[in-house]
C-alpha cells in the first residue's frame, strides 16, 4: 500500500468519526437564553396539548418569555436535577416531590426565598415546612396530598361495620375480623421497598406515637406488629410487600377488599369504581386521626450563574401558584391546594373533598422536625425494616432494631 492511499484511508476513517461527532454537535439545540425559560416538572403524563402545559405557556406570556417545558419521570428527577446543577445547567424553574427539596437545598442547588423574593406567606405552614431548612425556605408547594382509608360501602355494610366507629386500631381490627368472617378481604396498602413504602407506613408509625429519631421504640414496634399481624392473620394480602400505591389501588378496585390506604390522587379513579366508597381518616392507635405524611410537589428556583434571571422566574412561579391557577392545577392532579382560601373553594365545589382537606391540614412533612437530609437514610432503614418483618425474615422487634442501627 502506498503512503498516499494509506493517508486516504486514515482521512476517510477520521472523516467518518468527525462526521459522527460533528453531526451530533451541529444539531445541538440552542442553549436557553434570550427569551426562553426552562421548566422541569414531574408530570410526564401531561402532554403538550394538556391544560398544565397551556398554563405554563400562559404564565410565560405573562412574563414576556417563552417557556420550554420538560416533563420527567419523578424517580429520575432528583438525579437529573443534581447533575444539571453540577454542570451549571439547571432549569429556571424546577418542580419536584417535596422530600427532594431538602436534598437539593443541601446540595446548594436551590435559591432561598431571600434570594428569589418569592412570597410564601399565604401557604399553609405545615405544608411549607417540607421546603424549609434551618429557617430558610427553598420552594413553594403547588399542591398537597396525603393518605386516608378508602372503604367499600357494601362490604362494610354486609359485615355490619359502621365506618364512623373506626377511630382507633382496636375498632379497625375488629372490623377486619368481621369482614373476614363474611369471606371478604380486609385491607390493602403499599409496603414496597421504596419511599412509597415508608410514606404508607408513617401514619401508623406516627399514630402509635413513635418518632423517626427512634425507629426501635416500643410504639414503633407496635405499629409494625399491627401490619405484620394483618399479613399473618390474612387481613392483608401478602402482595402488599411488593405493592406500589397503584397496584394496591387496583386490588381495592376489584371490590373484594373492605379498606385501602391510599391518597388524594385516587379520587378521580374512585369515581370509576363499580361500587360505593367512602373515606375515613387513618385512626391513631389510641383513637383520633393519625398524622399522615404530606405528599405533593414544590416549585423551586434553582441557582443560576446569571442571577438576573430570578426576577422572571419569580414571575413564573408566582403565576403558577396564584389562587386561580392553583385551583385549576390541583383539580387536574386531584390534590389539595396549599392555601387555605383555595382549599375552601375546593370544598365548596366538591364537598367530598372535606375529609381530604382536613387530613392535609393535620398532616406532617416527612423532612420536618428538622430531620432534613437525615430523613432519606432513616426512611430507607425504615422501609427495609418493614419489608423484613412483613416477609417473615425477622420479627418486628428485630427488624426495627436493625433499622435503627443502620439509620444511626
Amino acid at each position, binding site marked *: 500500500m502506498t503512503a498516499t492511499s494509506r493517508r486516504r484511508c486514515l482521512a476517510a476513517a477520521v472523516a467518518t468519526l468527525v462526521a459522527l461527532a460533528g453531526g*451530533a454537535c451541529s444539531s445541538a439545540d440552542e442553549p436557553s437564553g434570550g427569551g426562553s425559560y426552562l421548566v422541569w416538572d414531574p408530570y410526564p403524563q401531561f402532554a403538550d396539548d394538556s391544560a398544565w402545559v397551556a398554563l405554563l405557556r400562559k404564565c410565560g406570556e405573562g412574563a414576556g418569555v417563552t417557556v420550554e417545558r420538560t416533563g420527567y*419521570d419523578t424517580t*429520575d428527577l432528583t438525579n437529573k436535577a443534581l447533575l444539571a446543577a453540577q454542570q451549571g445547567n439547571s432549569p429556571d424553574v424546577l418542580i419536584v416531590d417535596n422530600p427532594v427539596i431538602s436534598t437539593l437545598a443541601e446540595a446548594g442547588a436551590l435559591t432561598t426565598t431571600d434570594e428569589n423574593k418569592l412570597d410564601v406567606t399565604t401557604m399553609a405552614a405545615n405544608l411549607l415546612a417540607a421546603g424549609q431548612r434551618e429557617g430558610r425556605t427553598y420552594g413553594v408547594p403547588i399542591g398537597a396530598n396525603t393518605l386516608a382509608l378508602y372503604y367499600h360501602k357494601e362490604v362494610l355494610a354486609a359485615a355490619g361495620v359502621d365506618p364512623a366507629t373506626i377511630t382507633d386500631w382496636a375498632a379497625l381490627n375488629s372490623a377486619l375480623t368481621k369482614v373476614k368472617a363474611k369471606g371478604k378481604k380486609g385491607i390493602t396498602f403499599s409496603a414496597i421497598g421504596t419511599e412509597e413504602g415508608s410514606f404508607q407506613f408513617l401514619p401508623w408509625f406516627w399514630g402509635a406515637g413513635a418518632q423517626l429519631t427512634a425507629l426501635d421504640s416500643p410504639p414503633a414496634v407496635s405499629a409494625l406488629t399491627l401490619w405484620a399481624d394483618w399479613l399473618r392473620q390474612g387481613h392483608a394480602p401478602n402482595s402488599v410487600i411488593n405493592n406500589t400505591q*397503584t397496584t394496591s389501588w387496583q386490588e381495592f378496585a*376489584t371490590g373484594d377488599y373492605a379498606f385501602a390506604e391510599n391518597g388524594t390522587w385516587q379520587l378521580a379513579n374512585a369515581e370509576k369504581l363499580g361500587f360505593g366508597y367512602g373515606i375515613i381518616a387513618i385512626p391513631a392507635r389510641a383513637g383520633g386521626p393519625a398524622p399522615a405524611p404530606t405528599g405533593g410537589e414544590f416549585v423551586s428556583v434553582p441557582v443560576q450563574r446569571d442571577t438576573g434571571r430570578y426576577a422572571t422566574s419569580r414571575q413564573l412561579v408566582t403565576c403558577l401558584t396564584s389562587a386561580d391557577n392553583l385551583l385549576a392545577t390541583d383539580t387536574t392532579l386531584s390534590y389539595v391546594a396549599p392555601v387555605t382560601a383555595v382549599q375552601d373553594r375546593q370544598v365548596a365545589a366538591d364537598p367530598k373533598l372535606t375529609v381530604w382537606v382536613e387530613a392535609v391540614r393535620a398532616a406532617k412533612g416527612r423532612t420536618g422536625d428538622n430531620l432534613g437530609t437525615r430523613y432519606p437514610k432513616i426512611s430507607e432503614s425504615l422501609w427495609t425494616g418493614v419489608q423484613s418483618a412483613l416477609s417473615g425474615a425477622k420479627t418486628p422487634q428485630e427488624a426495627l432494631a436493625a433499622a435503627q442501627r443502620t439509620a444511626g
Partner: protein
Amino acid sequence: MTTTTAPTRRTWWKTGIGLVLTGLMLFPVYWMINVSFTRDRDMRASPPHLFPVDGTVEGYRAVFDQQLPYLGTSFLVGLGTVALTVALSAPAGYALAKLRPPGGRALSFLLLTAQMIPGIIMAMGFYASYLELGILNTLPGLILADSTLAVPFGVLIFTAFMSGVPDELLQAAVVDGAGRLRTFWSVVLPLSRNAVVTVSLFAFLWAWSDFVFASTLAGGGGHQPITLGIYRYIGNNNQQWNAIMATAVVASVPAAVLLVLAQRYVSTGITAGAVKD
C-alpha cells in the same frame, strides 16, 4: 435429521409440539395483550381473568390518538443506529479478521469489556456530557448512545464472518491493484451481505426497544421514541396500565414484522465465520 423426507404425519406432530412450545414462550406476551384490554377495576381480579371479559379499547384509543409521532421517531433512531453501527463495526471487523493489526486482540478484548459497563453508568455519563454539549433530547444524541448497545456486538459478528472470506479472493484483488479500502469496499463487504443484515437487524431492534438511554437522554422534548410514549401513562402516583401495555403491543408490531422478514439472512449470517474455523 429428517430433512429429506416429505412432510408426513410425523412432522405435523412436531408442528403440534412446536405450537405448544411457542405458546408457552409467548404466554407472557399474551398476558400483556390481555392486560392492554382490561379495565382498571379488573386489573387485580382474583382469580385473574384469562380473557378480557368486559374488555376496553380505551388503552388503544389513547395510543392511537397520541403515540403515532413517537413511532416515527423510533424509526429514525433505529435507522440512524443501524447506519452508525455498520459504519463503525464493518471496517473494524475487516481489520481484525484479515489485517491482523498489532494490538488487535487487545482492542477486541476492550470492546468486549466495554459492554460490561452497566447501562445506568453509561447513561449517566452520557447525560452529563450531553448536557454540557447541549445535545440532550436530540436525535443524533440518542442515536450515538443507542449504538453503544450494538457496536461491540457488530464488531464481533463482522470479525467472525469476514474471517470466513477466502484469502485467495483478497489476494486476487491485490493482484488487480486494489488498495485496502477498495478490497474492503468491493470484495469483502459485498460478500458479507448476510452479516450486514444481521448486524443491522440487531442494531435496529436494540435501538427500537431501548428504554434506559431514551428515558435518560430524550426524556423531555420533541424527539421521544415509542418506548418513552409509555411515560405518558405513568404519572407521579398513578399508572394507566392498559394504555402502557397497549403502547408496548403497538411498539412491538413493526419490530416483529421486521424480525420475521429478516429471519432468513440472520440464520445464515450470524455465525458463518465462527463455525467453519
